[in-house]
């Protein structure tokens, strides 16, 4: 009986080549679904990772530490002096790529002829530059210099709104820590264009010292933003920091808590992707179901003979399933090769979406998109396709096995 | 001249599709006169079907030519051949002759439809001929609702209805029992007399050979006997 299994496999393999054309078309359908899934999925995941890393690199960082309740209220009264143990940890831990202290306040900014509201941010320029891509986003002048207490660095749109150029002077007015109106004059060092219309319209950077002086806040800061060397360590680092910081006084927030819009945009995109992929699989699977059904029905007589000779219905089911598995596996193998090839090609040559530059920028995306190879995408695609093919073969297989030999023999 | 309806000149057919070359026909010279009722017999593989197919323009000879109603078939295009078959020939095959999705009446009408005959006349002629072959009650039946013999009668009706010069029948009785086969043959023989249509059969069937007026025997692609009765 040792040859029994092999015989069914051999039979199945020969059967699928009885009608080469049909098998080739069916395999092509599988190849199409697999290739499409691998490519679009890798593309989407790569794009999402890029969105996240671009957004985090410009400003937010992987996680931030605030005075408890700051994120909710965004007020200067919820500020803090970074405790000793935090700075020691951040300096020493290897997983920390960089960390920066910032002081944020809403202020009025005026060039003399024009005025607007801004988010004024005090930063430590030398530290910001350790990770931030803001320097690359600069479109005129220079970034802030360390210790330059008179410099201010603005979003491009904001500078345009104020009608100012590099080295023009700018007045900032705000309420200080004690509720008094405080004003100071700065010189524009340069402008940036991050791509996010919101940032470019509303952000102004001065040095941390200048901000603390303007607001009479000594050493207090609004946030400590942390950039990790490897984004994978986010959970562990967060846990470690939570381990020694007093939760009654501080809040540790990861990027996804601070940017729910980004997270949900990605989730929504994924959901659309899953629905679309599901639709394609469904359509392809119905086609395959039909092909298998026909392949089975035209062999009713043959199944009748097999059963008359003593083949068990279970073996007939197995035979049909193995035939379908062969088709699926063939399609999957070719689809993986093709999918890999196409995806790999676009890891070298970017897809150019310059036409939609502004929309893409809102989502923190570049206009030239490179794909990336994700092995898990291949694995999940293969499993899903294999199982849905087998599922679609189940109906014809069971139909064939329920056949009564006498009727099958009469069937033409 | 009007006498000779079919003339084959040195017909040879060589099949080279598989590794072995098969000489299915080796120089067949055959002349059939209008109104003949003749059978071609011979052992299996002797070339009967091949000969009928070539005469009917379904297949082309390797060498030699077929002249049908004075026309050389070798000069006709595929669609001219269709046209020629439509107007000059009727076919009856061994089995599964009919279009399964059409009723008996529609199967008979089909050829006239291709000829562009008007609906009313089509219907009238089809009904008449179905009555003539004894199927007046089966006009609206589909092929799967009829017996093999009834289906063959419809095939005869269809072959004859377009008033062809020649009807080619490849083993028309092979799937029928002898009584049914004989009545089919008697019917065709009547048609032959009444309408002056030439019938050319291929057959293994002794009864068909008995009914025919001329018998040609083929062996290994050659004519070994040609008896007029």
């Amino acid at each position: 009986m040792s040859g029994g299994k092999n015989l069914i496999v051999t039979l199945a393999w020969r059967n699928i080549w009885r009608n080469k054309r049909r098998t080739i078309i069916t395999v092509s359908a599988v190849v199409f679904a697999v290739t499409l899934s691998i490519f679009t999925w890798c593309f989407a995941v790569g794009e999402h990772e890029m969105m996240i890393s671009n957004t985090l690199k410009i400003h937010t960082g992987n996680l931030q530490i605030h005075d408890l309740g700051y994120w909710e209220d965004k007020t200067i009264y919820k500020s803090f002096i970074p405790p000793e143990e935090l700075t020691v940890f951040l300096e020493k831990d290897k997983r920390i790529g960089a960390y920066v202290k910032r002081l944020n306040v809403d202020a009025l900014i005026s060039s003399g002829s024009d005025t607007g509201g801004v988010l004024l941010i005090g930063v430590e320029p030398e530290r910001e530059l350790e990770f931030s891509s803001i320097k690359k986003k600069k479109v005129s002048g220079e970034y802030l210099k360390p210790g330059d207490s008179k410099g201010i660095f603005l979003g491009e749109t904001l500078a345009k709104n104020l009608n100012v150029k590099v080295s023009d002077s700018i007045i900032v007015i705000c309420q200080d820590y004690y509720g008094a109106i405080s004003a100071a004059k700065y010189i524009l060092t340069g402008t940036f264009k991050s791509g996010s219309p919101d940032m470019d319209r509303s952000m102004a950077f001065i040095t941390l010292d200048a901000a603390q002086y303007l607001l009479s806040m000594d050493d207090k800061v609004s946030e400590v933003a942390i950039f990790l060397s490897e984004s994978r360590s986010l959970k562990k680092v967060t846990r470690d920091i939570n381990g020694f910081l007093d939760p009654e006084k501080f809040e540790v927030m990861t990027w996804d808590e601070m940017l729910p819009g980004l997270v949900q945009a990605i989730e929504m995109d994924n959901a659309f992707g899953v629905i679309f992929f599901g639709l394609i699989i469904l359509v392809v699977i119905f086609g395959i179901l039909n092909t298998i059904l026909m392949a089975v029905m035209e062999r009713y007589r043959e199944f009748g003979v097999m059963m008359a000779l003593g083949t068990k219905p279970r073996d007939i089911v197995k035979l049909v399933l193995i035939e379908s598995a062969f088709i699926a596996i063939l399609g999957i193998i070719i689809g993986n090769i093709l999918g890999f090839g196409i995806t790999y090609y676009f890891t070298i040559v970017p897809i150019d979406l310059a036409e939609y530059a502004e929309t893409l920028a809102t989502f923190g995306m570049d206009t030239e998109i490179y794909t990336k190879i994700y092995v898990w995408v291949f694995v999940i695609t293969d499993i899903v396709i294999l199982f849905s093919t087998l599922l679609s073969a189940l109906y014809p297989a069971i139909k064939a096995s329920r056949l009564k030999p006498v009727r099958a023999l009469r069937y033409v | 001249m009007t006498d000779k309806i079919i003339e084959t000149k040195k017909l040879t057919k060589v099949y080279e599709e598989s590794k072995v070359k098969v000489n299915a026909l080796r120089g067949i010279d055959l002349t059939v006169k209008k109104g003949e009722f003749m059978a071609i017999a011979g052992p299996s593989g002797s070339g009967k079907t091949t000969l009928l197919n070539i005469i009917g323009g379904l297949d082309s000879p390797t060498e030699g030519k077929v002249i049908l109603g004075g026309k050389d078939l070798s000069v006709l295009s595929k669609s001219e051949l269709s046209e020629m078959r439509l107007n000059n020939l009727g076919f009856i095959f061994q089995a599964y002759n009919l279009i399964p999705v059409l009723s008996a009446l529609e199967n008979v009408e089909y050829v006239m439809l291709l000829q562009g005959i008007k609906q009313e006349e089509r219907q009238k002629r089809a009904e008449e001929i179905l009555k003539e072959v004894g199927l007046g009650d089966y006009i609206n039946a589909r092929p799967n609702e009829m017996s093999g013999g009834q289906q063959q009668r419809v095939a005869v009706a269809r072959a004859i209805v377009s008033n062809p010069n020649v009807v080619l029948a490849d083993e028309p009785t092979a799937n029928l029992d002898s009584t049914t086969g004989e009545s089919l043959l008697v019917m065709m023989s009547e048609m032959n007399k009444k309408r002056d249509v030439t019938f050319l059969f291929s057959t293994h069937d002794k009864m068909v050979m008995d009914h025919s007026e001329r018998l040609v025997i083929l062996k290994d692609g050659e004519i070994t006997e040609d008896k007029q009765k």
Partner: protein
Amino acid sequence: MKLAMKLAWRNIWRNKRRSGVILTAIVVGLLGMVFMIAIMDGMSSDMVKVSIENGVSHVQIHREGFLENMSVALNIRNPGYVISKIEDMPGLKTYAERVKVRGLISSPENSSGVLIWGINYEREPKLNSIASYKVEGEFLSGKKGEIFIGKALAKKLKVELDDKIVVRGQGLATEIVSAAFRIKGIYVSTSPEYDKYNIFINLKDSQNLFAMNDRVSEIALMADDLDDVDSLAMSINNEIGVQGLKAETWKEIIPLIVQMVEMFTAFNYIVFVIVVIAMAFGIVNTILMSVLERTREIGILMAIGTKPIMVFGMVMWEGFFLGLLGLVFGWIITIFFYAILLKTGIDFSIWADSLKYMGGIGTTIYPVIKGYNVFWSSFSVFIAAVLSALYPAIKIMRLTPVKAFRSV
């Protein structure tokens, strides 16, 4: 050709299960394709609609350059004259004049950068949904010192109804001016971002505060119909004849939304292509099989005088009918679901935060089946069916009767 059609039609019904399965595939494909695109289009038109109703309006008139930097200096000096010119224009439904100045709003607790709208409390609600977003207190009533702010901003400033807040900005005379306002009402629009940034005061108060006399920043207009917008803007530009004033349509005011809609549409066309290909595989195989199993029969058709071109036609008609039936069933089911979803909408509230990226549309999306969607999805299904028939049709047309008989 009639004959080929008749045979084709009957052939489709020969194997009902087979036709049924492939029709299901077509119906599912059509349904999915139409609704994916309808949802995208629903989002797009919501995006446009919400933006227009949240103050963008159909057309805005301002001094050239105002949109770039919203400077108080770029204003309309004599709005009364401009209004008299356009008031009776055909196609114009309603208008409202506004002052728009960027400034800072402060409470004792906090301050925030905002856009100050000075509005005509009577006319503005006719073209702006803002009054309908009210959740506490009242909308502006024209009395001095009233302000209408968003809930999110009130929270940030830690203020409540009737509290006093200070609005600060730059006046026309270039000095920083400020005034205190009492909170008359609080609103919640479709997007918290919007609520944080936009505050509303009476037109007169804003003109006094920023020393603008009777000047305004812009005049917003609604046309009778969204399709008339371009022609309305054009006739205004021809009519007003005031140096430096320009009417711009919503498309020029919110190019980002327009681009987003275009990107969605571009993706939609990709959906058409991909679904067509996916369907075609199944249809090719179905027709091919149904043709191949009839080889002998087709051989007989040819033997008794049917021309190859008619056999070709017959198979093509089979594809045609499959496509047609798929469309008929598909659209019946699609319309059925559409009727339901038009009433209930689709709940997207789990993605509420990301929808604000799309111009703050609501969380219930109503699918919109547009003309191009109907056309291209029907066309795609049709093309899939007919193109799929082409291969089997050519294949069988090349067949000779002799081969056909031997193949079985």
